[in-house]
């Protein structure tokens, strides 16, 4: 009846029970609070069923923020184990659990935190920057989000029911095969990533179409803001590499479900093919994340330097060449598999070539500041932190790109330090900078600057303290994913320092939560107009809070810094409005996300009748979603005048 699902699936060890209980208590408390306040109808009507990219963006951000907390908690556990617990007799975290923790940490941080954060920015900012009211396929956008959310739910469900994968964030076979991981962990990993990944793939197609077909009149490709350009490159990567992930996960899933032999060790299966395929996706994936961060910095450095971006064309060319190069470097993740000197050298050289356009971008940012008037807001502190750490990360990246060196440091903590350098220093700092920069557009009030600066400093210092020791440990021969080591190696002091670094980062996170809470309390004092930073691009041309239709009149663009140009040319605000059609809310996104999650869940637990039932339901719902007749609602000119009139007053 319930396949593999039985009472044994519930956790028995104290830490997991504690985690599940506290997590479950928080979720229950929130649900109870919503019920008590009678907010369900509001949530359903205004949020869950909304096709407004701004609201979908906010929901992405909330999911990402929650997952960030879980990811950081996992990181704390890893460090606690390595710095202290492993060297004592306490057996709080055993090997099985430790391996699930670091696998979950990696999976969560990449798929749910970084991807979620990125889609939050894209949903919010891209339509506004190109002067569009909407995305190309609004329902598809909602489906993408709910698939992402479904993946997240499934991922967290593995805590309470069954187990999570212990095979690392990319689950190499044969360890992730049935032979060595017979439990449900790897299945959870496969299917939560599969549905989240399909969501991302659809988003990629959606945003590419949006940017290519819905730009404001006059906005040629070479007049697009650099952030939007970075999204074009990033979404091209999404569209062209996520299918690889889909295939790879499916094949691994088939190996586990119906006994195929793609990646098994027997009957001709070839695990090396899995590693080849997963990295053909995996390497572009990190560029999917970091390119938008580059875009964010390219927006805010000019604004806070009160100067045009230096070398726009170079920047666009650099973005495109990074994008193209990132397709042909994947083998550098497994130089040590032994493909031979010619293959290794080829991929090593293509890898280090990426350093060239990346270096150019850094120089261009510096020269955007040059001869400007740089205002060091907290966004700029994040930028400075990024510029320093990312350059260090670039240096270690070039080292790893040389196969001769990689043979020595691969899979050591040196490697771990390197990619955290790129992902925290690049992606995370970029997203926090962007969050601070665009927050007034999201909410209508600024985040408290002082607390923001403290948080940025804590993160930067914490990052250095947490990861510089790992570089040293790598040189000393410490490998990744160790839950125990010989005390005579003398590593413990460095692990302790790294642990202190994680705590400093944790303090940074606490400061950020405080910052948001405090700013919310003080939102009256921190209230700002629609263009608080004296911005340059079109998102600042909209009123704040941004109305459903975003632009009362679609803008016409004549310059790269379109809004800057409009402000300085004193373009008259038109007051004659027409009716606007915007997409009507629909629950299909929620239904499709929910049904996909049920399908995935029943596959994981081998509940075949439920697979068929929910699968059929999914097909029926998907078909009926395409048959909707009336998909839009009208906002009349009179309504717009009322809203816009209010806005005029609030600006003055």
């Amino acid at each position, binding site marked *: 009846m319930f396949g593999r699902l039985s009472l044994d699936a519930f956790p028995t060890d104290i830490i997991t029970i504690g985690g599940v209980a506290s997590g479950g208590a928080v979720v229950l408390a929130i649900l109870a609070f919503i019920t008590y306040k009678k907010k369900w109808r509001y949530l359903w009507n205004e949020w869950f069923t909304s096709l407004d990219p701004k609201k979908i963006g906010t929901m992405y951000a909330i999911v990402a923020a929650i997952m960030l907390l879980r990811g950081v908690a996992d990181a704390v556990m890893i460090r606690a184990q390595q710095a202290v617990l492993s060297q004592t007799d306490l057996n709080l975290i055993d090997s099985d659990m430790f391996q699930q923790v670091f696998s979950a940490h990696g999976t969560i941080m990449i798929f749910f935190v970084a991807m979620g954060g990125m889609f939050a920015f894209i949903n919010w900012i891209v339509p506004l920057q190109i002067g569009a009211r909407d995305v190309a396929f609004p329902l598809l956008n909602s489906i993408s989000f709910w698939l992402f959310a479904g993946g997240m739910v499934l991922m967290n469900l593995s805590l309470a029911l069954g187990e999570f994968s212990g095979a690392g964030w990319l689950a190499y076979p044969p360890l992730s095969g049935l032979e060595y991981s017979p439990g449900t962990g790897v299945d959870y990993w496969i299917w939560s990533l599969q549905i989240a990944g399909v969501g991302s793939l659809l988003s990629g197609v959606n945003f590419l179409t949006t940017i290519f077909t819905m730009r404001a009149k006059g906005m040629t490709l070479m007049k697009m803001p650099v952030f939007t350009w970075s999204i074009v490159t990033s979404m091209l990567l999404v569209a062209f590499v996520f299918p690889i992930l889909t295939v790879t996960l499916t094949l691994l899933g088939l190996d586990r479900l119906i006994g195929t032999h793609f990646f098994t060790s027997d009957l001709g299966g070839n695990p090396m*093919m899995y590693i*080849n395929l997963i990295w053909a996706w995996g390497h572009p994936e990190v560029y999917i994340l970091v390119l938008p961060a580059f875009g964010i910095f390219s927006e805010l450095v000019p604004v806070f330097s009160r100067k045009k971006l230096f070398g726009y064309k170079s920047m666009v060319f650099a973005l495109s060449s990074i994008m193209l190069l990132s*397709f*042909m470097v994947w*083998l550098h993740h497994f130089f040590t598999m*032994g493909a*031979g000197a*010619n*293959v290794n050298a080829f991929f090593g050289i293509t890898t280090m070539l990426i350093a060239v356009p990346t270096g150019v971008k850094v120089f261009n940012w510096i020269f955007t500041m040059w001869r400007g008037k740089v205002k060091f807001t907290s966004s700029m502190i994040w930028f400075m932190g990024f510029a320093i750490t990312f350059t260090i990360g670039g240096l270690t990246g070039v080292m790893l790109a040389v196969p001769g060196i990689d043979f020595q440091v691969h899979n050591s903590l040196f490697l771990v330090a390197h990619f955290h350098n790129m992902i925290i220093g690049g992606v995370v700092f970029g997203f926090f900078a962007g969050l601070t920069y665009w927050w007034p557009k999201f909410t209508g009030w600024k985040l408290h600057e002082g607390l923001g600066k403290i948080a940025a400093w804590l993160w930067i210092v914490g990052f250095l303290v947490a990861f510089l020791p790992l570089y040293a440990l790598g040189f000393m021969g410490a490998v990744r994913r160790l839950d125990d080591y010989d005390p005579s190696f003398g590593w413990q002091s460095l692990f302790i320092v790294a642990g202190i670094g994680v705590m400093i980062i944790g303090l940074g996170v606490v400061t950020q939560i405080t910052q948001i809470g405090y700013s919310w309390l003080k939102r009256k004092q921190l209230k700002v107009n629609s263009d608080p930073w004296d911005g340059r691009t079109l998102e600042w041309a909209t009123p704040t809070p941004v109305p459903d239709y975003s632009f009362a009149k679609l803008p016409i663009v004549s310059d790269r810094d379109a809004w800057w140009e409009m402000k300085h040319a004193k373009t008259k605000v038109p007051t004659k409005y027409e009716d606007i059609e915007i997409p009507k809310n629909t629950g299909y996104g929620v239904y499709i996300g929910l049904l996909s999650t049920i399908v995935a869940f029943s596959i994981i637990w081998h509940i075949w009748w439920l697979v068929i039932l929910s699968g059929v339901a999914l097909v029926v719902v998907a078909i009926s979603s395409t048959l909707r007749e009336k998909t839009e609602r009208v906002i009349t000119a009179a309504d717009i005048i009322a809203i816009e009139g209010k806005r005029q007053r609030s600006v003055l």
Partner: protein
Amino acid sequence: MEYKSSAYQIYMKYLVGFTLSVLITFGSYFLVVNKLADGYMLLIMLFILAFSQLFVQLLFFLHLGEEKKPRLRVQAFTFMFIILVIIVGGSIWVMHHLNYNMMNFTSEQKEHYMMTQRDKGF
């Protein structure tokens, strides 16, 4: 699809495309079944025929290139094709080297292995 041509022209296009595709299909089929070529020669000829049928269908069925500028579909297709060549070609190249390097058996074992591989038609 913005058709520049009339219905009749589209009609003719489909017929021409269909005829060409059928011819090419038969061509490659009899090339193999009647053993008109073998070895690399056969492979190269099959390759050429497959790609010419690809272009026939792209032009006559999928109407590639008929859209108005900036011809985003052609651009997308070209880009996809480059990526496909990199990924598929790269994977096969990499895997060939890996498989070759991982067979450090004793010489007689290797021979035995190669023999069984040849029997299987690799």
